[in-house]
């Protein structure tokens, strides 16, 4: 396609088509990103900023709320992403069986949570997690717990509630990616393996997983970015404070508070936001390395 070199007029046309997008991206994305990188080395309150070198980075290491937020964000990420990916894979493999009855119904049901806005679903969950609410009642009815759990007053259970809610919202979304990928796998490979007597779990482990690896990697990276940016649910669950006592505060929520709630310190909040950029970069890179390594060894 279009191998012939573009003539001058076509060059101009090409630029005309992409120009509106590039101008907007430059103004509302690239310029703010560069500016925030510059800001992250500035200290001061409000717009009275001066160059502070590495002062903000030093402040990070001594800021208990930042360390709390970083720790919480990692907890959400390390616990939630694997649970969700495994569940999504499990559902996708189960639903990929074409002899299954009601599979359209199951698929629609499990996907349905993706339709809700983050605020809508976290509002619904907040009402379900009330101390005398339906969740505690159900758990007590089946004798899993003896007394109601204070989902929003206990630092541990508050995290659990948020993890449960996010998993509810996003599992079906990831499942759809796996279902789409599974349908592209050539079925004759499975038939050959079955005829050779390879058991089901081994087919899953040595055929399905390796073939889905690119999609798994893709969804893991997307979920990583999503979890590190976690904001809406926590803000809505905790009325904006990340409580009880900062036990659910995330990096994005802390940036918001630094900028818009306390006396604004733009420089320092920009530094915290670049922590997210760096962490996302490192984690995505690591996930690529792991995926490549596995390919080599298998």
């Amino acid at each position, binding site marked *: 396609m279009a191998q012939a070199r573009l003539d001058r007029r076509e060059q101009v046309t090409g630029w005309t088509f992409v120009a509106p997008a*590039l101008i907007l991206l430059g103004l509302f994305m690239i310029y703010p*990103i560069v500016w925030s990188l510059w800001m992250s080395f500035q200290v001061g309150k409000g717009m009275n900023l001066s160059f502070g070198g590495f002062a903000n980075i030093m402040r990070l290491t001594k800021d208990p709320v930042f360390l709390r937020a970083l720790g919480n964000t990692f907890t959400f990420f390390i616990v939630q992403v694997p649970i969700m990916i495994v569940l999504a894979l499990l559902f996708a493999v189960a639903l990929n069986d074409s002899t299954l009855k009601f599979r359209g119904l199951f698929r629609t049901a499990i996907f349905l949570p993706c339709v809700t806005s983050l605020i809508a679903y976290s509002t619904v969950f907040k009402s379900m997690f009330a101390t005398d609410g339906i969740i505690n009642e159900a758990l007590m009815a089946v004798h899993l717990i003896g007394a109601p759990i204070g989902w929003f007053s206990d630092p541990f259970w508050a995290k659990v509630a948020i993890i449960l809610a996010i998993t509810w919202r996003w599992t079906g979304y990831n499942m759809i990616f796996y279902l789409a990928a599974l349908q592209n796998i050539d079925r004759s490979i499975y038939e050959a393996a079955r005829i050779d007597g390879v058991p089901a779990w081994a087919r899953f482990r040595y055929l399905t997983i390796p073939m889905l690896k690119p999609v798994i990697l893709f969804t893991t990276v997307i979920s990583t970015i999503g979890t590190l940016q976690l904001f809406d649910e926590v803000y809505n669950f905790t009325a904006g404070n990340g409580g009880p006592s900062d036990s659910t505060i995330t*990096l994005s929520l802390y940036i918001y508070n630094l900028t818009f709630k306390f006396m604004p310190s733009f420089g320092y909040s920009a530094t915290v936001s670049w922590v997210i950029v760096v962490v996302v970069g490192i984690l995505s890179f690591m996930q690529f390395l792991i995926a490549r390594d596995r390919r080599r060894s298998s």
Partner: protein
Amino acid sequence: MTSTTMAENTGSAATKVGVATSAAPFRLIRRGLVYLLLSIAAFISVFPFYWMIVGATNLSADVIRGKATLGGALFTNAATFFAQVDAPRIFFNSAFIAVVATALTLVISSLAGYGFEMFRSRVRERIFGLLLLLLSIPFAAMMVPLFVMFSQAKLVNTYVAVILPTVASIFIIFYFRQATKAFPTELRDAAKIDGLKEWQIFVFVYLPVMRSTYAAATIIVFMANWNNYLWPLIVLQTAENKTITLILSALTSAYTPDYGMILFGTVLATLPTLIIFFLLQRRFVEGMLGAVK
């Protein structure tokens, strides 16, 4: 979706062979477990929707006491909601922002996707590569300067401030570029021979051919804008300019939230996306999957 039906056919043929083998009882148990697992998952997925609807008919005290049956307080909740929230104004805000942002995003991003794919040059390929890298930079890293920019331009608390930063979407540009790869170049060549200008080709040839791509993109972008929270929360500051998402969150943050009324509002706010979902289910899923194929 011809690939699905094909897969189904080969699949059922395959299991007929499989059922004939000896491991039938074991298969039956496994089959039962699969149904059990999927039923539990489906129940958990759907229950909060049921809860939301039932909650809208109950008083707040009943909602937080875990009452899961229909109540008689629907009209009370509706009355409280409409008394506390200027609903026509708020829903107008949400709809206006979502519709305008979606229209602008589709125009600007599809133009760019077409441009990047049809007129390849080394410089533009480099720029495109850079854009893909930028995809992984979180919004948090630009929100502070963005806010400062809009407050310096005295545009805080306007629709413009909510809409403008979202309309050039790298993801949607990428989506359109991927889709354009399937656009038959012969059509463009023929149109050129007929003497059509490039913009005419785009409007009269490309647009009609790609309408399903536009449909899927409309769903993604509309949903994203209707549900957007963080940026509107920052730039929309007075009550009469807020979107339904912001209002719901504010109501939920009250010291003793009136859940019956809030869940009534949540049902209203979720309805548009639910309707789109059930009308366009297949498109919807394609849209969510985006350019990953």
